[in-house]
């Protein structure tokens, strides 16, 4: 499938910014069933300082806000050719060891709810069946609901509250998979949605390591394994590692964030 993506993130500040940095993980790579064509990143109100590949091989850029700016815009655009691999990503690449994805993080620290969840699906025939069951259970127990959680909400909290967004679904699944002894990782990326071109946020799902197939993707929120409508952009142990934009800013003042995303064929 040939997907055309346009992703515009806009920050408006009520007072001029004197020193702010933004770390972008917004460049998809070719590989794992996707080929990237003509990817561009246009920036206004800030200047790219450098680019590097992080420990999870994410293509990362560091931006410095222009002194005194009140407006920063990051516009990514390009075409990604995808093939349907039924969620199978396969072998592990890069220096980050598999065991790193077994470790808990602040957002995926297990509590009683997560332990219960993991226990409920523990008796499965194999990893794959277990993970499908886990994904389905999370979908049932955690209603998709915007505005109840934010990017710092721990999986345990979202699970206990019974609602969240794709990010919370992914965190819960990752935390539970790790409890069951499987390495699991967070994926941020894009999804072509049927009959809906304009989206207001990018998507997130997770991947779990299976000895037979390697990494396999699970999108809890849509109850499927990612197919050719999905574009992987960044990965990590949780949202914190794979966040599209991570910023730090000196001084006071309010920040207003707006995302305009289009994914179309």
């Amino acid at each position: 499938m040939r997907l055309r993506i346009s992703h515009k993130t806009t920050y408006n500040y009520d007072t001029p910014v004197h020193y702010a940095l933004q770390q972008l993980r917004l460049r998809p790579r070719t590989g794992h069933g996707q080929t990237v064509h003509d990817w561009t990143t246009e920036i206004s109100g800030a200047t790219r300082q450098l680019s590097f590949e992080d420990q999870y091989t994410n293509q990362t850029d560091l931006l410095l806000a222009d002194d005194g700016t009140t407006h920063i815009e990051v516009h990514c655009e390009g075409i990604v050719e995808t093939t349907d691999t039924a969620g199978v990503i396969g072998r592990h690449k890069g220096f980050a060891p598999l065991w790193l994805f077994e470790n808990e993080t602040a957002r995926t620290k297990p509590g009683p709810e997560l332990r219960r969840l993991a226990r409920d699906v523990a008796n499965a025939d194999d990893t794959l069946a277990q993970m499908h069951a886990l994904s389905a259970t999370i979908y049932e127990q955690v209603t998709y609901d915007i505005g109840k959680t934010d990017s710092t909400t721990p999986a345990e909290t979202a699970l206990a509250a019974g609602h969240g967004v794709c990010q919370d679904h992914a965190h819960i699944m990752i935390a539970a998979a790790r409890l069951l002894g499987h390495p699991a990782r967070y994926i941020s990326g894009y999804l072509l949605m049927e009959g809906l071109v304009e989206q207001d946020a990018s998507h997130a799902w997770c991947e779990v390591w299976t000895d037979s197939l390697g990494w396999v993707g699970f999108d809890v929120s849509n109850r499927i394994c990612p197919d050719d409508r999905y574009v992987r952009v960044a990965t990590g142990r949780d949202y914190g590692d794979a966040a599209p934009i991570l910023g730090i800013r000196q001084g006071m003042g309010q920040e207003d964030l707006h995302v305009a995303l289009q994914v179309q064929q």
Partner: protein
Amino acid sequence: MTESKPHLDEMFVSEGAPRAPYELYHDWFSGEDIKHLRRKSAEAEAFFRRIGITFNVYGQEDADERLIPFDIVPRVISAREWARLERGIEQRVRAINAFLHDIYHRQEILRAGRVPKELIAGNEAFLPEMIGVSPPGGVYTHIVGVDLVRTGPDEFFVLEDNARTPSGVSYMLENRETMLQMFPELFTNMKVRPVSDYPRALRRSLAASAPPCVTGKPEVAVLTPGIHNSAYFEHAFLADQMGAELVESTDLRITDGRVSMRTTQGYKPVDVLYRRVDDAYLDPLTFNPESLLGVPGIMDVYRAGNITIANAPGTGIADDKALYSYMPDIVEFYTGERAILQNVPTWRCSEPDALKYVLDNLADLVVKEVHGSGGYGMLVGPAASKRELATFEKKLRARPANYIAQPTLALSTVPILTQKGLAPRHVDLRPFVLVSPNEINITPGGLTRVALKKGSLVVNSSQGGGTKDTWVLGE
């Protein structure tokens, strides 16, 4: 805190009979008046206070800026003894750097099963952010301090490695300076190898590790948490001696893809940053977002290869006490040789058998926290009361993996000058090692720390220890 085992006295074979390295010193000392030496000793203290060689003790708000007591009797090491130590230290430091490169890349040593994966996987000193980073010249630990204790004429043990930010080198230099001023005649009689080249060697070594993008003379800076840090004196001292800027986090920011310092004429890039700020505080964008001591974005600049950070972040995994007991294997794995320097036998309390042994023999052992430093949170079994032992036993049972235990070694003594003349006290030794892409440089000597209390084994300055000048004799 006493210990009665027979031990080596480094100065005397028996009463009045010096060991060979001390012969000349002993001759001189016998001709001196104790009262006069006591006066000299008081002068040294006044001198230290005037030039401000002080440290701040953590957990004592009012008692800011204390002096580390200095003892005027030097510790003397013969050329032969030193040569062997030097070989052992160099081998160990090479292995540490090879280990760090491996652990942040393919982790062959884990694949080979020589070090258990769990020790790294569950270890906070392992920094995922360092995965895949190859620092300029392959140097991870530009500065290493190796803590040694001695139990016999040729028996040295490594007590611990300091691969993060070893401190104390300023005392090594100032102690020598003080001795030179007070007792110049001693240095004309004895061939003591100089230590004063250290700051120049440090600068050379840091400059040699500059990132490849640097074309001219590399700009070296020392990053300090500020004047309230316990080691501020040392930070200022080293910056001064190296002719490098002493910067705080507020002086630094990102400009043009580099880390730059704010000068009176604008921002200027730093090529090599000798940082005396812990990993966790180094970059609020990457690590602790609350940190005010760090430089946001510096890890990004580092990964992009535009700055050298000394020591590299994440080197703590090499001096972690949980890994310490594997050091002989680590040395062998990377150098293909047997370790020249011995380790102190160590029980890892994470292992059930070891834990049982430790609990059964608690009163005879020294138990340390895996991540502790500065002598805090440790138990010296033979010196502990029944109640202290019982309290510690509870801690051990609650978090066994947090502790290691070692036998109380019969540490060597060197005399100090007391009111009544010479009296033996236990010592350790921290030589300082500089690593650059082309050489390993070990300053002859190091910092000798001495437990000033009779019989005490704890030499940390925060726990009532003092220091001595360390003399390595020439051939």
